[in-house]
């Protein structure tokens, strides 16, 4: 059914299709609309989930963990401060191999109080063992939540997935949305290590170095498996619903001399900048990184790169730029832009490309001479 929705409503609509047994969440701007919509559907009997209105994000994830290990499908959503507060349990969910799906509405971290888009909140969770995907449109938010469950619950993955959407820029933007009732795209959830009281077991008991080390390797092995599962799931999704996704969305990048690399809504904005630059005779293209964990394999040889980070690792670099330097031989022009919701237009992005200085870093609107 074709309708219109905000990014938040699209996330909620996808969750409704997947019918988690237990949803535990705590409200935070700009995520609130997701949990309000879900709570309303549960109250109206349209969604047969148990909705636990916990007192904090730490408890939201703890409740999802307690439910998930019984073999129940779960969902939560958060943002920024909430994700930071949840951090301990974010680690726990991955270490316990529980395929929880969480929407994170990307927002800057205080102080000062700032409720607008930034990716640093999610990037601070990048080493926890969660798969991370960043979406650029309302439709993609819906489709990706659906795919996230199938990927997370796949027997060769069994890791949690964080679906990221930019605060306000996407969470509160209204776009068209095709809802397909895709519930059966995701097979029924079966957790191999679910609690079975007939066979008592100790979960998470004190674990010595040898076994602990093996468990860590097992997470990494599953993370590597997930690359294939993601590709297969996206291909299956495309066959069934006609909407195509890839771990990295390419736009006019085939013959490009200079490639803009960005994530989330900035990645969509970059596509408009590419068209603008092409009209000026600059052979530009763009790559939008969707899956940040597992980090994609990229062949960027022979291109000039302009990398836009809506985030920063202080004392190091933009986190996306740093990741690209680590995984490729690239030495990009690194642009730090959009922190705390700073407006970044396609004109601005085109300007970054025109004025690119490979190997240097620009703090957009703050310092032209970093």
């Amino acid at each position: 059914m074709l309708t219109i929705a905000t990014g938040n409503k699209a996330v909620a609509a996808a969750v409704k299709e997947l019918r988690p047994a237990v949803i535990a969440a705590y409200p935070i701007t700009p995520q609130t609309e997701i949990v309000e919509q879900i709570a309303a559907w549960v109250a109206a009997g349209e969604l047969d989930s148990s909705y636990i209105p916990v007192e904090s994000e730490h408890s939201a994830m703890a409740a999802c963990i307690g439910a998930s290990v019984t073999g129940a499908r779960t969902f939560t959503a958060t943002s920024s401060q909430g994700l930071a507060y949840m951090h301990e349990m974010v680690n726990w969910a991955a270490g316990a191999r529980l395929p929880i799906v969480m929407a994170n509405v990307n927002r800057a971290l205080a102080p000062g109080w700032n409720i607008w888009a930034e990716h640093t909140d999610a990037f601070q969770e990048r080493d926890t063992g969660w798969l991370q995907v960043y979406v650029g449109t309302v439709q993609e938010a819906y489709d990706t939540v659906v795919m996230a469950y199938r990927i997370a619950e796949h027997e060769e993955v069994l890791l949690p997935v964080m679906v990221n959407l930019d605060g306000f820029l996407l969470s509160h933007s209204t776009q068209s949305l095709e809802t397909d009732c895709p519930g059966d795209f995701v097979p029924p959830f079966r957790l191999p290590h679910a609690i079975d009281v007939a066979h008592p077991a100790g979960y998470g008991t004190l674990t010595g170095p040898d076994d602990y080390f093996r468990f860590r390797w097992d997470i990494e092995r599953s993370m590597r498996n997930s690359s294939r599962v993601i590709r297969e799931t996206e291909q299956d999704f495309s066959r069934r619903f006609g909407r195509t996704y890839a771990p990295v969305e390419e736009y006019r990048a085939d013959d490009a001399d200079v490639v803009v690399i960005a994530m989330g809504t900035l990645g969509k904005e970059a596509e408009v900048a590419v068209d603008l630059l092409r009209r000026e005779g600059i052979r530009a293209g763009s790559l939008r990184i969707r899956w940040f964990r597992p980090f994609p394999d990229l062949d960027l040889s022979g291109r000039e790169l302009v990398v836009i980070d809506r985030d920063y690792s202080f004392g190091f670099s933009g986190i996306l730029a740093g990741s690209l330097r680590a995984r490729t031989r690239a030495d990009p022009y690194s642009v730090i832009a959009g922190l705390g919701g700073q407006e970044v237009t396609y004109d601005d992005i085109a300007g970054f490309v025109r004025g690119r200085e490979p190997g240097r870093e620009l703090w957009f609107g703050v310092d032209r001479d970093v």
Partner: protein
Amino acid sequence: MTEIPREEFVLKCTSACAGCPSSLALRYVLKAAGHDTVLVVPACCTSVIQGIFPFTSLNVTVYNIAFAAAAACASGMSEAFRKAGKKTSVIVYAGDGGTVDIGLQGLSAALEREEDFLYVCYDNEAYSNTGMQRSGATPYGARTTTTPAGKTHPKKDLDGIVAAHNPPYMATTCVAYPQDVFRKVQKALSIRGPSFIHLLAPCPTSWRFSPDLTIEMGKRAIRSGMWILYEREFGKVTINSVSRAALKNPLPLEDYLSPQGRFSGIGQREKDILISQARKMAKRLIHEEEGVC
């Protein structure tokens, strides 16, 4: 007399200290709960007592969880079991640090939401697992490694806090009275909604008494009136007979304090404060029982 099942769920070869009250009490908690139980354990002595992976000394399913997370984890678990139509009992078994300090927020919220699980706080009045640091449950005057000159604040009134949430069932108990532990756990599990049991666990390691005195110290705690056995069922308080008798004719405080190294060097002023707190607690409970307050 209550028939206590012979079946053991706390198996031999735990890694508990000699004279451990927490593993002994757990033995009776699990006998009362039976097979169809999941024990949710935050960081505490019981995290260690189970032993090292891939072995476990507990013959029920145990879900270990982060320090502050037990009540929320149990909430999610009991909701999931309910949705699946299962009657499995969910029991949190948490120390005092994980309850009165870092876990209090989650416990309060779970009580407010009326989640259907039993929360047992075994109270050894310190972070005993990590070598006897003070907790909010450490009594006035007690020496710990972080209160080397004696604690200068009274023990937090956990039961008062829990009672303010009006759970359908709450009780105190003590490891020295295994039948009391057994009966109260059975009763708690028979009642829908949240239930809470506060279990005094005299700990030889951190209270610094001889490990053969665990039961004796528990008995002296009750007989001196420093710990009162009672139940609050749907708001109605019943002081249990052993404490009713003790409060009429209490053992001298000295008999309870003197075997404990943590109270060595305690002055008369600290003793007076401990006695006055215990009397205040007794008075409040007696008034509640009589319906005066």
